[in-house]
Each structure stands twice: as structure tokens, then as C-alpha cells.
């Protein structure tokens, strides 16, 4: 029983990070109809920025804030400098450009920082509270929950309660009509990328300290899990991203703990097959999938 509780908490805290990262993917998908394969590399770049700032100033929080800002800036840059000029007549072009960006970002980081894992500090203790000898959550896990929760609430408010959010949704769903109505579709696109990259950076900041440390490829595995989460939840649905993230996190934890860690990728594949065969547009797909 104690192992079950431990595995559940372990899965939830990782699942939340996947959720945040999946959310970033959903944001860009909704805004630009691109699956941003460069999300992981962009997040790692932000974590490296935090690493430098924290090492220079000794302040975790300064590094944290700068990393999120760096994420926003990187998102804007990628959209304005590269993605805007991609010929979107084939959806593949965007994917390939994103993959190219991954190589450029990872190579640049490798040259600047080297291909070593560099340790990243956490702002709170990672020692778990014990209740009756069972390890539950650590302070850091609580921080992860609070951070991801805040982001989800803020994004929900943004999209449902504010004019900017409404414009962003309009620009994504009906760009031509929106343009006629005076919405700056390009501006909304840039904003979408900035937000997504910011959320991605947050996810990076949260997960990297719990793994091997920061490395140019540190987010590759997280990206795969988060992409699976976004697909399970449905790429159009922010709620789906959160639920998908938690499901994938728990699944990975239970399978690794009870069966074997080597089986985990097969479990993810099985989950995708089961969910997608039932609902080809993910669990929370709003519109009915096109009939084949």
C-alpha cells in the first residue's frame, strides 16, 4: 500500500510537469496549427539562462524570472524570425523547420555550456514529508503543483475572460474573418508563441532539477511524454492537456514501479492506441473527428 501511495505521488508530480508542457504544445497548436517540436530545446535554452543567472547572482528566483522572460523572448523570436516565413501549404514544412531549430539550439548550447550535465538547484527541499513511514510529497512537489495550477488558472482566465484571449481564439479559428474585424492576426500569433514558450520554460525549470541536471538534450524525453499527453487529451483542449499529462505521469510511474521500467514506452503506446482508436481526436476532442 505504501508503495502505491508513493508511486501515485511520484506520478502526479511528474504528470503535472507533462501537463504544463503539453499545455504549451496545445497553445501553439491552437494558434498556428503547428506541433512545435522545438519546444523542448527552447525550454532547455531558458533553463540554461536561469543556470547562468543563478550562478552569477546566487539568487534562484532571479534566475527563475529571467528564464520565463527568456522563454517569452525566444518564443517571439522563433515566430517572428523563422516560423512566419515558413510556407504552410504543407503542414510538414513547419515540423521540419522546428526540427532544424532543435539542432541549432542544441548545438549552440553545447558549444556555450559543453555537453556535460550541469546541476540545477531547487528553491525548496526535495525531501518528502513522511506520514506513518510513507513518503508523500516534498515541499518542492507542492511548489510544482502551485506553479502549474497558477498557470492553468491564468490561462483559463485569459482565454475566457479577457478581450485579448477572445482575439487570440478568433485569430486562430477564423483568421480571415478576424482580420476583417480588425484583429491583428499576426500579433495574436506572436503572442501565442510567446505564451507557449513561456509555459514551456516553466515546465523545463520545474522538471530539470528532478532529473540528471541541465543538458542540451535534457527535455527530449519530457517532450515525448508531453506530446503523448497532448495527443491523448486532444490537441485542441487545454483541459485535455492537463488530464493527459496526469494520466501519462501516473501510468509511467505505476508501470515502472510494479512491472519494469523497460516496459514503460510500451505502456505509453498501448495507452495511445486504446485512446485514439476510441476517440481519434483525443479524449477531449470537441468537434467530431472527420470520418475516414
Amino acid at each position, binding site marked *: 500500500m505504501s508503495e502505491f501511495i508513493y508511486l501515485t505521488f511520484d506520478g502526479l508530480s511528474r504528470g503535472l510537469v507533462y501537463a504544463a508542457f503539453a499545455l504549451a504544445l496545445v497553445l501553439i497548436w491552437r494558434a498556428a496549427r503547428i506541433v512545435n517540436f522545438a519546444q523542448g530545446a527552447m525550454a532547455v535554452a531558458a533553463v540554461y539562462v536561469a543556470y547562468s543567472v543563478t550562478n552569477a547572482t546566487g539568487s534562484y528566483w532571479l534566475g527563475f524570472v529571467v528564464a520565463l522572460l527568456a522563454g517569452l523572448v525566444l518564443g517571439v523570436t522563433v515566430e517572428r524570425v523563422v516560423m512566419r516565413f515558413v*510556407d504552410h501549404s504543407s503542414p510538414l*514544412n513547419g515540423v521540419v523547420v522546428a526540427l532544424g531549430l532543435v539542432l541549432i539550439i542544441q548545438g549552440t548550447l553545447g558549444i556555450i555550456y559543453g555537453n556535460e550535465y550541469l546541476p540545477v538547484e531547487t528553491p525548496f527541499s526535495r525531501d518528502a514529508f513522511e506520514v506513518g513511514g510513507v513518503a508523500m510529497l516534498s515541499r518542492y512537489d507542492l511548489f510544482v503543483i502551485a506553479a502549474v495550477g497558477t498557470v492553468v488558472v491564468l490561462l483559463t482566465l485569459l482565454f475566457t475572460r479577457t478581450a485579448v484571449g477572445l482575439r487570440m481564439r478568433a485569430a486562430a479559428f477564423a483568421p480571415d474573418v478576424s482580420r476583417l474585424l480588425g484583429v491583428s492576426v499576426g500579433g495574436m500569433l506572436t503572442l501565442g508563441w510567446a505564451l507557449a514558450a513561456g509555459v514551456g520554460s516553466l515546465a523545463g525549470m520545474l522538471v530539470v532539477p528532478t532529473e540528471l541536471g541541465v543538458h542540451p538534450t535534457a527535455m527530449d524525453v519530457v517532450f515525448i511524454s508531453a506530446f503523448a499527453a497532448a495527443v491523448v487529451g486532444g490537441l485542441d483542449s487545454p483541459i485535455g492537456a492537463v488530464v493527459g499529462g496526469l494520466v501519462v505521469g501516473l501510468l509511467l510511474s505505476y508501470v515502472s514501479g510494479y512491472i519494469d521500467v523497460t516496459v514503460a514506452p510500451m505502456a505509453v503506446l498501448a495507452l495511445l492506441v486504446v485512446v485514439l482508436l476510441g476517440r481519434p481526436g483525443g479524449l477531449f476532442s470537441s468537434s467530431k473527428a472527420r470520418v475516414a
Partner: protein
Amino acid sequence: MTAIEARPATSTKTMPGAPRRRRVHPAIVIVVGAVLVVALTYVLPPFRNYQLATVGAYFCVTAGLTVLTGLNGQLSLGHGALMATGAYTLALSQNKWENLPLSFALAVLVTTAVGAVIGLAAARLRGPYLAGLTLAVAIVVPSVTSTFDETFNSDQGLSVMLNPPPEQYPMEQWQAWLCWAAALIVVLLLALLVRGRFGRDLRAVRDDETAAKLAGINIARTQVLAFVVSAACAGVAGALFAYLAQSVSPGAFPLTLSLFLLMAIVIGGLGSLFGALWGALLLVVLPTLSQSVGEHAGSQRLEGNLALIVFGVVLVVVMLAAPGGLASIPSRISRLIRRNR
């Protein structure tokens, strides 16, 4: 105005099988190709012959992927896993029976069967959802080899028993011949296949499913068939890789392989078998080139990383400057010349 008029013209031109006035029969192209390759193998030094062989092996899978993604519009991030299937089948069969033709046949057969299973699931999915499913397939390879390690020997993989080539031919030359024989047969079959009704169906389904359905095309069947054909090609390529390396291991078929295959065909030029050739060439030449750039830069830290950057920049620049891929560049240039005249 010129640009607007020119666009549709290019897009039809890059498609094989699109109506043209003078069409060279694929068999002629293949024969010319075979002659060129054989001539090359006598000119090139051994390592270049090995690279040539690798290009041939890649050509099989990029050609198959071109049919699936370029002509049928289905995105697969899992072709690396299909190649692994072919490679492991060849290794297991070879170590048991030591009969190369039989092993190749089995490799293609097993990969085709696996491709059919994935294809059945894939036919229900679109765009990123298909990408997600095939991505999960791509990362399952090391998991399968570790879980069933008695058969697949985990991360370490299997070595492949092979008889040496006839004595009068150097190993690398022999490898180049075998790989290119396979590649040219695969490409000839694909070219013949997409010229006919099947090719029309593929494109119709890609362009407009509803219209295709109205025209009486069975969409699910066409999509599954496209997957099966493309999987068979990946199986050939995987078997060739196992043959070339005399070994198979999951590390040789990572997710990045699947992604690179996709990048290669998009850069080469989606939807044209010549684009697939360009793509295969790139997969071999670009890493070598960028590595030597890195080596000349001297610094230890630069070496591998500079190669990554060069590769990435080439990808981005080609996609921005020539979204039709390398195969579209000749027609772009000729269009430019015509316009300036």
C-alpha cells in the same frame, strides 16, 4: 502576378506521374542509374563505396516514405522502428539459417505485416494524432529489445552472421552493388505502382478525402495499402542496414533516425522519388560534411556541436528558401531565367 501563376505549375511538375508531354519510362531511368552506380563503384575508394551503399539503403526507406507522406499525406514518425523490425528479422533469420535471400524475404514479410497493423490504426487518425501514435512506435524499439532480451539481447543487440563476398570483389564494392540493386528494384516497383490507378487514388485521398470518396475510392483501404507499401520499403532498408553493419542494436534506430528520414524527404522534395534520392544523399553527405567543418574548427567542444548547427541551418534555410525541396530547385531556376528574359 507571375508568382501566382507559377505556383500551381511547379506543384504539378514535382509529382511523378503527373501528365507530361514526353515521359521517360521508369525502367530506362533505372537502367541508366544502375550503369552509373556500377561505374561509380569502380572509381570510388572503399569508404566512399560504403557511403554509396548507405545511400542506397536510405534510398529504399526514403522512397517508401515519399509514397506514404508525399503522395498519400500520412505523416509517420515511426519508420525507424519499421527499419528496426526488418533489421532484427534479418539478424535472427540469418543467425538461424544463414541464407541471405531467405532472410531478406522474411525481413520484408515481417515488416510488411507490422506495417499493416500500424496502418490499420493509422487509417483512422489524422495529422498530429498520427504523428503521436507513430512517435510512440518509434520509441518502443529499445523497450521491446530489453523486455524480450533473450531474443533481442537488450541494448547490446545481435551480430549478424554473413558469408564474405566472392573473393575477387572488395567488400565495400559488393555492399554498394547489393544495396543499390535492392534500392533500384524498390524504386522501379514504386514508380510503376504510382504511375497507375493506385497512384491516382493516393493523391486523390491526400488532396480531398470527400471528393475521393465521391469518386468511389475506398479511403481506408488506400491508406492502409500506402502504409503497407511504405513499410515493406522500410523493411528492405532495415535489412540492408543490418547487412552493412553486420550487427543490429536498438541504439542504431533511435527516434532521431525517424525524424531525420522525414526531414530528408521534405528537404529532398516531397512527393517525388527524385526528392527521395536527394534526401537519401543528404542523410549521408550532410553529417560527413558538417563533421569535417567541425573538425577544421579545431576546438573539442565545437566539433560535434558545430555539426549539429550546420545540419540545422541547412534544414531551416532550405525550407525557407525552397519549400518544394531540393528537387524543385531546377524548375525554380528555370522559371527565374524565363522570367528575367
